[in-house]
């Protein structure tokens, strides 16, 4: 059993949740999302994120528009859809439950 492995599994499990959380606060460019997730040590390499964002977009949780940037070609500007907000609500509940469960186990 490898501790690193388990930790990376845990991070992976909450990645979608964190992306939705980030975008709930404010719409963001892909590069901003990447930067914030890297700061939080949730992802190591950027490549992980692009398929994930596309998957979330294809299932209707995220939407994006092309926004001109002052440097280089237009970039994707992601935002949360209504569907995404509902989905996020469910995840928040699930996270709360998990938190409670863990606290419960820890404290008893």
């Amino acid at each position, binding site marked *: 059993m490898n501790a690193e492995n388990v930790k990376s599994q845990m991070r992976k499990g909450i990645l979608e949740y964190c992306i939705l959380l980030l975008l709930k606060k404010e719409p963001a460019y892909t590069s901003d999302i990447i930067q914030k997730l890297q700061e939080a040590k949730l992802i190591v*390499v*950027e*490549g*992980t994120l692009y*398929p994930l964002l596309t*998957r979330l977009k294809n299932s209707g949780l995220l939407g994006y528009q092309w926004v001109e940037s002052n*440097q*280089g*070609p237009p*970039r994707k500007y992601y935002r949360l859809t209504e569907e995404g907000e509902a989905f996020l609500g469910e995840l928040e509940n699930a996270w709360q439950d998990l938190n409670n469960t863990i606290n419960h186990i820890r404290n008893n």
Partner: protein
Amino acid sequence: MKKTLTVNLGGTVFHIDEDAYQLLEKYLSNLRIHFQKEEGSDEIMNDFEQRISELLNDRIRLGYEVITLEHVEDVIKRMGKPEEIFGDDYTEERKEEFKTKADPQTAAKKRLFRNPDDRIIGGVAGGLSAYLGWDPTAVRIAMLLLMFFYFISIPIYLLLWLIIPVARTATEKLQMRGESVTLENIGKTVTDGFENVSNNVNDYINSGKPRSAVQKIADGFVAVVGFLIKVVGIFFAIILIPPVGFALIILVIVLFAIFIGLIGGSIGLLGGGLGLLYSLFPFADWSSVSAYPETTLIIATITMILAIGIPLFSLAYLLCGKLFKWKPMPTAAKWILLILWFVSVATTIVMGINFGWPIIDNQGWHWNSYHPIRHIRFW
């Protein structure tokens, strides 16, 4: 000193060293193979390219004029190697790979495919030579000789064309050569441009996604249409591409007509065949034919010469083209020749029957009676 290439990456133009380009190309190809099965793979790849473009652009802004290997390595480190991006899935895929080929001997097992990248007609010779590891030109010459001496090899070729599948995917192309199917090799194959990983119909059909009933029906439809196109293709290939086979077919037809003439078979064909013989051999008895106006005879002769000459000319042209590296005939010229040939053949047949019919009628065709064949001195 290094050679550089100019690439368009995510809408920005970069000058990039050749080695750096190769690394980047390989990296993107590998990613593309992984995402191929995923919905929206094109979009994901676009995201990747866009981001890489952004990162490289930062270097340019720092004052670098050319993207070097080092820059690309940095970018890949940042974006992640395939095994980092795909994590467990990737290692599982690898395991799967090893499972399916526990024995390295069977790993490199060859399969016979037609080679779409090395083809003149159907890629049969190309596929065979890849399978056998022989020189494709030698195989072609051998096949051509076979076709000259044994007519039966022509239908055999067509049959092989129909039966042997074409190597579509990178995997199949590697199997055709007997190279083991590893991700590195696939990457190499893709990079070498053997496979165009685009979202075309073939790739879609061949992707490993489970398919719904409707899609299966559509696949079946595509397969049937493909088969029909192939049959039509064979027909046109006989006429357009291998004038050899075509000339042989003409020869067989002429021989057949003479044969029929000699044994006094089917009257209709005989009429055509004899008319043909008359125009071919002017020293035969022209009495019944000379009743026709001269222009008709001239036209008949010209169409006859065209009907036989066009295939022969195409054959000669093809051979000269191969020997002296002439430019291939323009498509328009091919079509004109083809149409001209059809017209000539049709005219020849019509005129042959017109000429031939009265002869048979007049002579009251009978083996023992006077017949024009006797006037042609074969011996």
